[in-house]
C-alpha cells in the first residue's frame, strides 16, 4: 500500500494494521526516516519536501511490485510525507511483513534503497545560511545499485 501525504503518521497504529487478524505472519520489518538538524550546509531549521503528484505514486507502486516479485511478502506499506517538516519529524515509513524474517528484513532495506533513487521527491533545506536543495548522494546510488539484477 502506498500513501503520499502531508500529515504525520502513527507508527504503532500503522504497523499494527499490517498484522491485525493475521496469524501466518512470522515477521514485520520497518524503517522510519527522520529529518535531521545537521546537513552538509550546516544547521537545518526547516526541510521542505517537494514531489511530482501522479508520478510519485506510480513509481512507488512499481517499487512495491518489484519487492513482491523478489520476496514472498504479505504486506508492503510505504508512507512518504511532503511539505514543510522540522528536525525530528518523520519523513517516511517503510514496512513489510512475511512468514519469515529474512524476506521482511531484506525487502524493507531494498524498498528504502530503491525509493531514495527512484521516487520523485526533492528536499530543500533551510537554515541560518539560507536555503539549499539537497544534492543526490553517490552512496545512495551505490546502495540501490547493489540490488540490481
Amino acid at each position, binding site marked *: 500500500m502506498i500513501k503520499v501525504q502531508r500529515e504525520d503518521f502513527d507508527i504503532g497504529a500503522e504497523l499494527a494494521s499490517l498484522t491485525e487478524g493475521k496469524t501466518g505472519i512470522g515477521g514485520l520489518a520497518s524503517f522510519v526516516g527522520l529529518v535531521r538538524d545537521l546537513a552538509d550546509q550546516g544547521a537545518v531549521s526547516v526541510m521542505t519536501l517537494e*514531489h511530482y503528484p501522479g508520478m510519485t505514486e506510480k513509481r512507488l507502486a512499481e517499487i512495491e511490485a518489484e519487492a513482491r516479485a523478489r520476496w514472498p511478502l504479505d504486506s508492503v506499506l510505504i508512507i512518504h510525507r511532503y511539505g514543510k517538516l522540522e528536525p525530528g519529524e518523520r519523513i*517516511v515509513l517503510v514496512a513489510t511483513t512475511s512468514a519469515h524474517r529474512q524476506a521482511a528484513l531484506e525487502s524493507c532495506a531494498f524498498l528504502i534503497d530503491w525509493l531514495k533513487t527512484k521516487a520523485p521527491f*526533492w528536499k530543500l533545506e533551510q537554515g541560518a545560511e539560507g536555503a539549499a536543495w539537497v544534492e*543526490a548522494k553517490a552512496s545512495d546510488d551505490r546502495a540501490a545499485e547493489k540490488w540490481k539484477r
Partner: protein
Amino acid sequence: MKLLYFAWVRTNIGKAEEELAAPGHVQTVEDLLDWIATLGPQYAAALDRRNVIKVAINHEYVEHDHPVRSDDEIALFPPVTGG
C-alpha cells in the same frame, strides 16, 4: 507539450509548469533541452548542468535520446533526494 519543472530546475526557471510549442526540429529530449536553454537567461541557468537533469515523459523516466511528442507531459528535474 506540457512542461513541468521541479526543485532547482523550477526555482531557476521561475515557474512550475507551462505549455510550450516546440519547433519542428525538436525530435528528442536532447533537442528539447537545447531549445529550452535558448528561451531566456533563467532557462539557460536551469539547464547549465544539463547532463545531471532527469527527464520523465508521461510519468516514466526516459533517457536524453528518447523522442518527444507534442501531446507529451514532460518533466525536468534534478536527481531525486527523497526517503
